[in-house]
Structure formats: C-alpha cells, structure tokens
C-alpha cells in the first residue's frame, strides 16, 4: 500500500470507526462525568484509623455516657453507651453534636490572662474590711467545685456561691405517679435515658398552661391558667373540692377527677419546673420523702478536703461586699440573672469569667478567659437530679483544646495559695481507698467491684470513660433536707398581669447555657421544631392585637429590660402567653413575676 493522503485518511477513518466498536470511547465519555462530580472547595472528610473511645458528656449534669467514633483521633460522631445502667445509651440532640463545639465560630479564643491575674491579685491585696472574694460556680458538685470551696475556705473572707442546689435526688424508678408542675420531664430533665427507661412504670400528670413536649406525651395534661398551681395541688390531695379547683384553674372537672384517681396508683412524686425548687412540703405530705425523693449522695472525697467553704446562695451574700468575683461558666449549667448578682458587687469589683461563650456573663465581666469546651474538657460532671446512687465519672478529653485555654480550678487554687495538685486523681484515689462501689468499664464492657482493681487501674479505667457507682447504701430520707421555702402555693407562673405587661412568659425549651453546635439550625431555623434563642412564640390573637406577623422583628420587654427578638405565631400557644427559649440574655430579663410584652419594631 502506498502512502498517499487518501490512504492515510482511509486508515484513520477506518480506525476511528473501528474504535467506536470498542468500549474505549464510551468508557472515556462516561469517565468525563467524574470531573463534574465534586469541585474543589467542597470539603473532603479526612481518612484515618477508626476507633471507639469513651467519655461522658459535660453539656448538662446528666453526664450521659458517650461512645465516640474517632477517625485518626478526631471524634466524628457520638452515640450513647447502650448497656449503661443509667444512661441506657440515649443522648439528647445537643449531646449528639457536642463534638463540633470546639470549632464553633463564636467560641472565645483568647483572653487577657496575665492582666486578669494581676488585677485579681491587686484587688485582693487592696480590699477593704468586710470585702469578700467570691467564686460563683454554676455547676456545683464537681471535683473542681471542691477546689473552689477549699480555696475560699483558705482565703480570708472567701465566699463560695452557687445557684440553688437541691440536697436531694429523685428516684424515678420508684415512682408510680408523677405530678409535674411544668418540669420538662421528657425534654431535658434529668438523664434522658433514665427517664425513658422508667417511663412504662409511672403515670405522668403534667400541670402547665402550655402543651409542652412533656405535656403532649403525658398521661394527663392539666391545662391550668397561669399561677394556679396551688389550686391543683390542693385539689389532688383533697383539700379543696374538684369543682372549686376547676373554677380556679380552668381545667374541666372530669380531667381533674381522672388526675386525682391516678394519684392512688402508688408512690407519688411531685416535680417543679425549676429543679432548685421542689414542692418540698407537698412531697412530704405525699409520703414521697425516702421513697421517690431521697438524699443526694456524693462520691467520697479526701479527708483533707473536708475543710471547705459551704455553699452560699447569691441572694444570701451581703450587698456591695464582693470585691473579686470569679465566675466559672465553663460548663453549661445554671444561670443566675445578672441583676441578682450586681447588687452584691463592691464599687470597683474585679469580675473574671471563665467561659467559652460571649452570650453569658462575658457581657458583664471585665476579664473573659477562654476555657475548654466539650470534648476537650478533663473534669468530672457532678450528679444529675435523678442520679440516686453516688457516682463519679470523668469526662475524658477526646481532643486537645484547639485554642489556648485557662483552667479555672488551677487559677483559683493559685490565687488562694493552694498547692497545685491533680484534684481528680486525688479524688479517684480517695474513692478507691473507701473500697465501696463498682467500676463500670465501657471499654471492656464489664463491671467489677472497685476493691478488685488497683488504684492505677481504677484511674486508667476512669480516664478511658469508665464510671464508678455506689448504690449499696439504703435510700435515706432527706431528713436534713433544706426543703425550699417554696411551698406549693408560690405560683410558678405568674398570675398577676398588668396592662403594660400582659403576657405570661413560659419557657418552651430546656434552658441551656453555653455554645450549641451550628448544626442545631436543623432543629431551629431549618425545621421550626425548636424555638431558637432569639425567637418568641405568640398566639394568633395576641399577635394580631399587636400588629405582629409571623417572622416580624419585635422587642421583648419585661420589667427588667428588653431584648430584640423575632416573633413567630404558633397556634399551640394560648392567648396571654409568650413562649421563649432559654439563654442567658432571656433569663436576665426574668424577674420574680414572669410577665412581658412583645411590641413590633
């Protein structure tokens, strides 16, 4: 064959036609789809060795056991630990996305540590007679709380302040009837796994004006007029007639009758919305003390620690007496409204807050020092309201802090002149020495009496997310309980409404402090399942009366101040009520009377 142009063209043409009969060009066409699949800029998950690690969640006192799936050491998802005797493997929505908190864009990443140390030292040295140094511990009951108490005992004029801490625990498993005055039993109360494990055992009578998540699943919901809780209590114990209660509360007689009948079922328990406030006298009346309301038990502490300052309520502190206030807001917990704290501060008080969020006390403090967030933290959690046994569990850190952080315990110990020791280790050793209780090892998935483990093994197991539990002592009646003066009679919702503040404030979401993962937008903005912190929900009637439409920008105003919010209309909210989510800014506005108004901007 001669090489003419024609022959060449014939060859090439024939070759091309032949190639079409092979898979090659078709495959190539299909493969070009690849480049349109994922463009640069789309994050790719890192790969690595996959391991399970165990810890405990620090986002609330429940301290649920957590199994973290870690890729190359980085937690990528969290689940509960199914065989756990308390948690039963359940985690709440916040706990499920806790591993994302270290990367929260609003996290406090730096703070004036040196300046704070200097200012605090100066203030301590220069304080006048009668001026105090105080630590406000928002999550009391931890080992670091003992450090604060020891530090305040050592310092002259030291004060250890806490939000009200109940000296009792609730044994839900023993209850057959629960009467809850607005307590969010199924949505943030106690330990979720524990509550749902016990669910089948009790009938719930939920008493509150709005149908919360708990009320929707309750056996009986009593939709009372705000402020009429005492009438319900009296009716249920027979002190007043059902008819009279029906008139006072607005609940129909039939439902009230059914509730009263349900109470006959067995051990009764009464709960209130604020865990610090229990209908104490009523529980005593119902014979709950010693059965469903028992003494709170704590894990043993080293003898040397027993010299510790007692817990004082903020309200009990003398006015204008605190010269140095150190607030530990590192773990989400109770929040005391700033208006209750400010009168206690001396004129040139130095206020230091240990926090990771700028939404809480950081708004009021002079020095904001960044702390570790879950799961970077290395401390224990403290007992939950429904933890009957004495427990000790460490939230073992899963990653190192991604920003430079300050350890509040070390800071306070230093200014008090206490020796810097590993308090957690000391405590673990004390527990081990006491010899009681069981060690539950999640990694090995078994439990054994603590006596059978060495101190080092015990410590190692605790740091791998193990848990120490002692339920050997009999349930004691909380004889020396400081039952709150709150008799059921103090309205838990406000009955008195003024014309100016015509709406009763009801908290729709379990009040959480601290950061929440940006992924919570799924529940808030992207589905309206939960109310976000900057939103309030009104009934259609109230909204219309104020010219408010769904999504309008409004101002939420109480006697204590105002807050810019977005209003949503919810047909489930009765007239005269405004539902809010928790959050420090909102809690700052609560007064003794939870009344408010919402005005369109």
């Amino acid at each position, binding site marked *: 064959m001669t090489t003419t142009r024609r022959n060449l063209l014939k060859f090439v043409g024939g070759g091309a036609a032949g190639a079409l009969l092979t898979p090659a060009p078709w495959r190539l066409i299909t493969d070009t789809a690849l480049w349109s699949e994922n463009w640069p800029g789309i994050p790719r998950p890192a790969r690595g060795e996959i391991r399970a690690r165990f810890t405990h969640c620090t986002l609330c006192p429940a301290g649920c056991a957590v199994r973290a799936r870690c890729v190359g050491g980085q937690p990528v998802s969290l689940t509960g630990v199914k065989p756990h005797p308390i948690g039963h493997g359940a985690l709440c929505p916040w706990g499920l996305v806790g591993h994302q908190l270290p990367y929260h864009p609003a996290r406090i990443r730096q703070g004036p540590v040196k300046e704070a140390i200097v200012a605090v030292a100066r203030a301590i040295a220069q304080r006048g007679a009668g001026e105090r140094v105080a630590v406000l511990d928002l999550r009391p009951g931890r080992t670091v709380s003992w450090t604060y108490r020891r530090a305040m005992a050592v310092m002259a004029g030291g004060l250890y302040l806490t939000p009200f801490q109940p000296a009792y625990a609730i044994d839900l498993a023993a209850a057959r009837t629960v009467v809850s005055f607005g307590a969010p039993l199924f949505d943030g109360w106690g330990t979720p796994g524990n509550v*749902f494990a016990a669910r089948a055992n009790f009938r719930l009578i939920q008493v509150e004006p709005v149908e919360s998540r708990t009320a929707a699943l309750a056996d009986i919901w009593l939709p009372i007029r705000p402020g009429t809780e005492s009438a319900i209590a009296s009716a249920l114990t027979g002190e007043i007639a059902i008819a009279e209660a029906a008139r006072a509360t607005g609940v129909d007689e039939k439902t009230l009758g059914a509730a009263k009948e349900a109470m006959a079922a067995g051990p009764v328990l009464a709960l209130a919305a604020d865990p610090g406030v229990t209908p104490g006298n009523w529980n005593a009346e119902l014979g709950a003390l010693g059965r469903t309301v028992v003494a709170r038990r704590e894990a043993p502490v080293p003898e040397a620690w027993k010299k510790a300052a007692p817990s004082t309520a903020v309200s009990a502190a003398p006015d204008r007496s605190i010269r140095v206030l150190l607030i530990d807001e590192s773990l989400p917990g109770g929040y005391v409204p700033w208006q209750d704290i400010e009168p206690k501060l001396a004129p040139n008080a130095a206020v230091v807050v240990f926090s990771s969020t700028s939404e809480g006390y950081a708004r009021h403090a002079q020095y904001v020092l960044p702390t570790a967030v879950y799961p970077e933290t290395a401390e224990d959690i403290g007992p939950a309201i429904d933890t009957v046994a004495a427990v000790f569990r460490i939230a073992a850190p899963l990653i190192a802090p991604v920003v430079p952080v300050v350890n509040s315990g070390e800071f306070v110990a230093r200014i008090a002149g206490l020796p810097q020791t590993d308090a957690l280790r000391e405590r673990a050793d004390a527990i081990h020495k006491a010899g009681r209780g069981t060690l539950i090892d999640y990694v090995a998935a078994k439990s054994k009496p603590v006596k059978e483990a060495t101190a080092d093994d015990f410590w190692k197991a605790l740091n791998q997310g193990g848990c120490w539990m002692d339920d050997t002592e009999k349930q004691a009646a909380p004889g020396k309980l400081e039952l709150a003066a709150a008799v059921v009679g103090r309205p838990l919702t406000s009955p008195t409404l003024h014309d100016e503040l015509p709406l009763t404030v009801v908290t729709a979401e379990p009040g959480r402090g601290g950061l929440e993962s940006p*992924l919570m937008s799924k529940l808030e903005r992207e589905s309206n399942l939960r109310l976000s912190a900057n939103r309030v929900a009104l009934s259609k009637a109230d909204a219309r009366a104020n010219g408010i439409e*769904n999504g309008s920008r409004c101002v939420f105003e109480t006697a204590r101040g105002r807050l810019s919010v977005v209003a949503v209309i919810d047909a489930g909210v*009765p007239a005269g009520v405004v539902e809010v989510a928790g959050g420090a800014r909102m809690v700052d506005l609560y007064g003794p009377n939870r009344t408010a108004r919402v005005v369109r901007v």
Partner: protein
Amino acid sequence: MSIDIDKCNGCGACMMACAVENNIPPMPESANDRKGITWIRVYKVDNHRAYPERRTAFVPVLCQQCGHDAPCVHVCPQQAVDVDPETGIVGQMPERCLGCRYCMVACPYHARYFNWWDPAWPAGMEKTLNPDVSPRMRGVVEKCNFCHGRWHAAQQKAAAAGQREIDAADYVPACVEACPTGALRFGDLNDSSTEVAQDAARPESFRLLEKIGTEPKIHYRSQRDWVREIANAPHPDGKDEHRG
C-alpha cells in the same frame, strides 16, 4: 421502619444524628425551613381543635422508601434514582443528578432536598466529617437512604467473617440508633419475626397517603384516632398557621 408516634417527644435527636452521619452542613443564615436540608424532619401535628382541647403529636418524616413504583424513580431523566431489589432502599446518586428537581415535584412526602448552596462548615469543623459519606456539592438533590454506608459496612463485616447475611445489629441507621425514646425501629419487613414486621401488622399501624399507591416502607402507629388521620389527604378546614 416502624415509628411509634405515641412515643416521639419531638426532641430532634434523630435529625441531629442524621446530619452528623451524612455530612449535612448547617445552612447559611438566610435559609429558612423551606431551603434547609433535613433528610429526616420531625413535624408537629395537632388535632385542629382550639385550646385547651388542642393536642399535639410529633411525626418524624423521612424518605418513605416507596415500593418499586416510587414516584421519584420513574421521573428522573437520567436514572439517578433506583430501588435496590435486595433491600428495598430507594437510592439517590448525587453524582448523576442534574439538579432538575423533577423528583422533588413528584415526591408527595417532601422528603427530597436540593442543595441550594455549596456545603460550608465553620473553619475547623470539617474535621468532624464522616469519612464514609461524601459531601455533596450544590445543585444536586439528596435524601435519606437509610444510612446506606452503614449497610455496606455491615456487608463488609459479614463478608470478612465469611457469612452471607449481615447481622441485624450491625446495620442500624443513625436516626434509629439515636432515638432516646425508642420510637424508631428498623428491621426487615419481610421477616415476620422482627419487631418491625410485627409493628407493621398492628391494627393501629398506618402509612402516609396509602391511597396514592406509593407503597411506602415506613409504618407509623398510634393509639390515638386523630393521629391516624394524618395519613389522609389535607383538609382545609383545619387550616393552621404552623410555626414559621
């Protein structure tokens, strides 16, 4: 899957576990509940009465994994959706998807979501992504696939152990695993010994919009009559203004 509406407390744990498992990003500030991506979404339903007779319930809605006449399978112009004959899972291939959104129009359960934005996580948070699921770019449709990646992992585990069938305990979707109240149950509907199959056979069990003929595989149940009514077509008498 079977869902006990009488147990669901609307906490949203299932929604969070799903978002974590499937690398779903948080939406930008301007997104609302119609532009967000929630493969499983808990709706609040009520009995259309006024306070205080008003009662609410929570209904998790995810892809109903319809039968082989799934509306979305038929309509996709490029076969990006298929029904797996072995598991019955309706699978969506975001890599094949053109983004025409015809399947979203076809789905009566609003279970399909479009990526209106490119996924964006705050700096550093991309370290927490699940390596078993690839993030999707903008312009494609996505939906629940019963945590297909977990099924693959269970299959691999079974294969490594030399078994043909997977161990049911190894394949649990993230939402079912996370539900604290035990409202969600997952299993083989064809195996009458499983809890799920027994749940589906109960008299108080129902499926959404059964009359349309989609044959969904999600069986809801409730003892309450008014809750079972949600399976029916909309009724304008009960016009409510839902939150948002």
